[in-house]
């Protein structure tokens, strides 16, 4: 320990303190050396061949235990770097700008001065720039045409989206798809193929339900009699079901409530409103009034705390006990009879279980069937039920020229999307046109004319409205 230490007086009173502050490293080192020599033999006695080794391997590189970047990460790390092909364009000089805070002086003429503006204007009026303007116009037209052409190319779909020669298909980043970048450089920067976030699968209804359903053979323009009858039967069944549903709804809502005529309703209302008010005296309605001698009498007699005597209590207790005894007796009797009834009970139970199982399975089947065709509930609005395509027999001409369909194909598509769960059912709300109210803004510069104009305008509007009304 050769560190330079400020000498400090310390007490070496105890053995412990002595040991602590006495430097014995040199002694220990010496002893260690000695022990080593004893173990391995003396250093100067040993031959050179034992002490030295001829280095034949060369210098060994010390390997750092830094984790190597994955190929994906390496590529991503290299992405922001400027492509190799652009490096020529960068300044190659290592000498930095001696004046870092150099002011960039604009060249003369880059910014028009007041004077130059004047001269330019004068020259423009003279017609010096006519040619320039024409040239500029021409250039602009060319640029526009190019733009339009580009748009058209997009409409022409001139690209094999599912082919392999598409740069996007190879995973080349969009920033590197440029005509100036050679394909080697593009391929050099191919991104990993796997998407960062895969697209979650579509819902089941969308995957399984067909977009264009098989048409019923009865909707042919010239159907066979049997098939058309089948279709009609289907429509009738559908309609019947709907009617039944409607009738049920009516029964459950409108039909459930008592009906009251308006006269009765008014009477009821009158009665309710006059409840508790002093009625005009009518001796005919309650003649008993005269008999009570004006004495106050409550409608309910006052409650009295009448105590039961012993006898009554006993009787009550006895009654309860008797009832209990009879009940128990009955139960005991039933227990005995049940033993004889065991078989019957068993059959009863099995029967009930069977019935329950049957109903359960039936319900499950029904549920599965409805779930198969049910419209997914996405919104508070309801998607209209699918109605069978209906062709009334009068409309059927069996002639291609006289076909007239009642179905709206666009609506059919719209509802099909809803039924598959691609769209939420919706009610299209009509936008109301906002009515703008016109005000006369009074300012300090209002003249008589302004007021007159405003009044006239208003009067004109009113008169127009009136004429409209009159016409209607």
């Amino acid at each position, binding site marked *: 320990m050769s560190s330079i230490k400020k000498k400090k007086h310390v007490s070496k009173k105890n053995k412990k303190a002595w040991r602590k502050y006495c430097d014995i490293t040199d002694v220990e080192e010496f002893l260690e050396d000695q022990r080593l020599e004893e173990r391995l033999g003396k250093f100067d006695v040993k031959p050179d061949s034992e002490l030295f080794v001829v280095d034949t391997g060369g210098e060994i590189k010390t390997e750092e235990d830094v984790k190597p970047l994955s190929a994906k990460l390496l590529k991503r790390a290299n992405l922001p770097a400027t492509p190799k092909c652009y490096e020529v364009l960068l300044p190659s000089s290592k000498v930095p700008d001696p004046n870092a805070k150099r002011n960039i002086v604009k060249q003369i003429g880059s910014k028009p001065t007041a004077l130059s503006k004047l001269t330019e204007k004068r020259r423009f009026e003279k017609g010096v720039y006519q040619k320039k303007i024409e040239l500029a116009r021409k250039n602009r037209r060319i640029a526009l045409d190019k733009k339009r052409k580009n748009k058209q190319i997009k409409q022409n*779909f001139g690209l094999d989206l*599912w082919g392999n020669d598409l740069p996007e298909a190879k995973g080349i980043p969009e920033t590197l798809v440029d005509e100036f970048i050679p394909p080697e450089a593009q391929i050099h920067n191919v991104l990993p193929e796997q998407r960062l976030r895969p697209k979650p699968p579509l819902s089941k209804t969308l995957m399984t339900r067909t977009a264009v359903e098989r048409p019923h053979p009865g909707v042919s323009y010239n159907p066979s009699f049997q098939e058309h009858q089948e279709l009609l039967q289907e429509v009738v069944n559908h309609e019947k079901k709907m009617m039944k549903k409607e009738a049920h709804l009516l029964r459950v809502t409108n039909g459930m409530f008592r009906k009251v005529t308006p006269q009765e309703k008014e009477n009821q209302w009158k009665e309710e409103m006059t409840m508790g008010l002093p009625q005009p005296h009518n001796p005919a309605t309650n003649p008993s009034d005269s008999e009570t001698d004006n004495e106050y009498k409550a409608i309910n007699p006052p409650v009295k705390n009448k105590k039961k005597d012993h006898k009554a209590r006993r009787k009550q207790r006895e009654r309860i006990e008797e009832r209990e005894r009879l009940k128990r007796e009955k139960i005991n009797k039933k227990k005995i009879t049940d033993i004889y009834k065991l078989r019957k009970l068993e059959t009863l139970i099995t029967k009930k279980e069977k019935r329950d199982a049957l109903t359960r399975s039936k319900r499950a089947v029904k549920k599965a069937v409805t779930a198969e065709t049910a419209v997914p509930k996405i919104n508070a609005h309801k998607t209209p039920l699918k109605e069978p395509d209906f062709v009334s027999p009068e409309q059927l001409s069996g002639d291609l*020229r006289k076909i007239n369909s009642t179905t709206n194909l666009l609506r059919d598509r719209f509802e099909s999307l809803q039924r598959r769960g691609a*769209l*939420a059912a919706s009610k299209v709300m*009509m936008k109301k046109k906002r009515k703008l109210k016109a005000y006369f803004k009074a300012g300090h510069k209002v003249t008589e004319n302004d007021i007159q104009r405003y009044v006239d305008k208003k009067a004109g509007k009113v008169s127009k409205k009136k004429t409209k009304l009159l016409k209607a």
Partner: protein
Amino acid sequence: MVSKKKKKYSTGEGAQFMTRKAALKKLQLSLKDFRRICILKGIYPREPRNRKRAQKGAGGIKTLYHTKDIKFLLHEPIIWKLRDLKVYQQKIRRARAMKNYPLMRKYFRDYPEINIDHIVKERYPTFVDALRDLDDCLTLCFLFSTFPSLKKVPRDQSMLCRRLTVEFMHAVITAKALRKVFVSVKGYYYQVEFEGQTITWIAPHHFSFQPQSKDEVDFKIMSTFVEFYTMMLGFVNFKLYHSLNLVYPPKLTAAFNSETDKELIDEHAYVSERIAAMNMSLARITGANEVEELPEIDIFHTEDEDPQKLEEAKLEAEKVKKLKTMFKGLKFFLNREVPREPLVFIIRCFGGEVSWDKDHFVGATFDETDESIAYQIVDRPSMEKKYLSRYYVQPQWVFDSVNVRTLLPINKYLMGAVLPPHLSPFVDKTKDQVYMPPEEKALNNPDFKPLDDDQSNSEIEEASDEDNEDKDNEEEDAEEALTKQYQQEVEQDSPSEEEDADDDVDPEKKKIAKEKKKAMAVTSGVPFKENPYKKEIEDKQAFRLREKLVRKKHRNLYKSMKAGQEKRKKEIWLLRKKRRLHDEKVKEEKKTEKRKQKMQILEAASV
């Protein structure tokens, strides 16, 4: 220490779903933009299993999205474009408000377009995926191609739909991919087959435009769907044209170039241009040959495959091959009153040539006076001038022929005839247990011959014929019996002769020799004869054993299936019996009538 309390709905179904409002907030988009991007990217609202939990305890019914879906949207580069568009729209609005109309016009002119082809690629990673989802796309595009410019639909959209649909139809024509047609009241159902995928779509009848009421359909949403679908159809067309060695974009008539679209205002002119475009043949890539016909199906013998199924597939392939060249070399002429678009499409699909009246519509290729025309399609009861060299048939003949896959006999479809019903080819093949009257069978299968066909044809000699047949049968029977007897006799004779020859040798020795011979002799092998009846019985028993192995889980289902089959079989049997009885009765009546007539004639002759 108590662990930190878990917040409600931070896991499970509550965390899986997101309301639309929350999604809007997360994506920083307006509702309009959100709707658009959802349709473009194919992200749709979901129905949760437990709504209460998914809505984090809130009541009512809200539109819910998967959180994963929204996170997926978050990575879409188009979102940034939409945000930029918002700024652009503000600029336009400002220019309008400031009444700086030239600037506004400039903004409109340079309106940035959103490129969505990468979305098409993302949603349909392979071409087959795109083909599989083409039903909806085609139906909507065909529908929108009939629309005039509407308020909520971009101006060029219906024009683009028109172009793309015609291009697609051309691809179908050159690939000869059409398989089925059905004329319904709703429209024409077409089914085509590309790369093993069947695509079905509806093309509407051509009426004059019917006004759509506003409260039924949200045009804006449908137009967004169409925006995506046109993009998809364009790329599909490109790929199809390339696989068919055609030049894309094809040079169709002048009306389909976008520069001249303003000139054609008349609806009828549009339609006739469209049909004329379909009647053109497309330019092929130079140096490319015709698409070579697919070779016949090679049969690879695998153990698990049913030979019957293989045979069926082979038959089907043969039929399709026949269908593809059904109208080849035939010339068709369409009369004025016939719906031209479907007919031109169908006839050209199977190699026919079509033309129409040159004076009425553009694009006619040959005149009505052409003697080589094989069929003229008419839809009127009679015509003044008729050519002897051609058949005059009604349009339904074409549709029915396609569905049956052969040229049907024209006698039922001649001009003015009462047409047989137009049956749907889209019948469920799994429902094969249906009673089919012999007429329908004959229509579906031209080779089918009803059992009593020849009898009905030769009605006059029926009575005598039957007797003759009976006699013939008897004679044959007698002959057979004779030959049998003879053979038996021969067999009996042959051993007896042998015995006669060896009569004089010692009987004991003979016996020993015989026994030895018996031990040594090689008896002639008897070919194993399968008793078909016995085999049937064995098969039945094996089947019953297998039936017993049906799991308990499926037993009820199996039973109900079997019962249904039995029921249907019984129904068919009953209907057939009824038909047979009816036919017999009719025949009997006819016979008696004829006899009566004969008798009358005879009586008259005798008197």
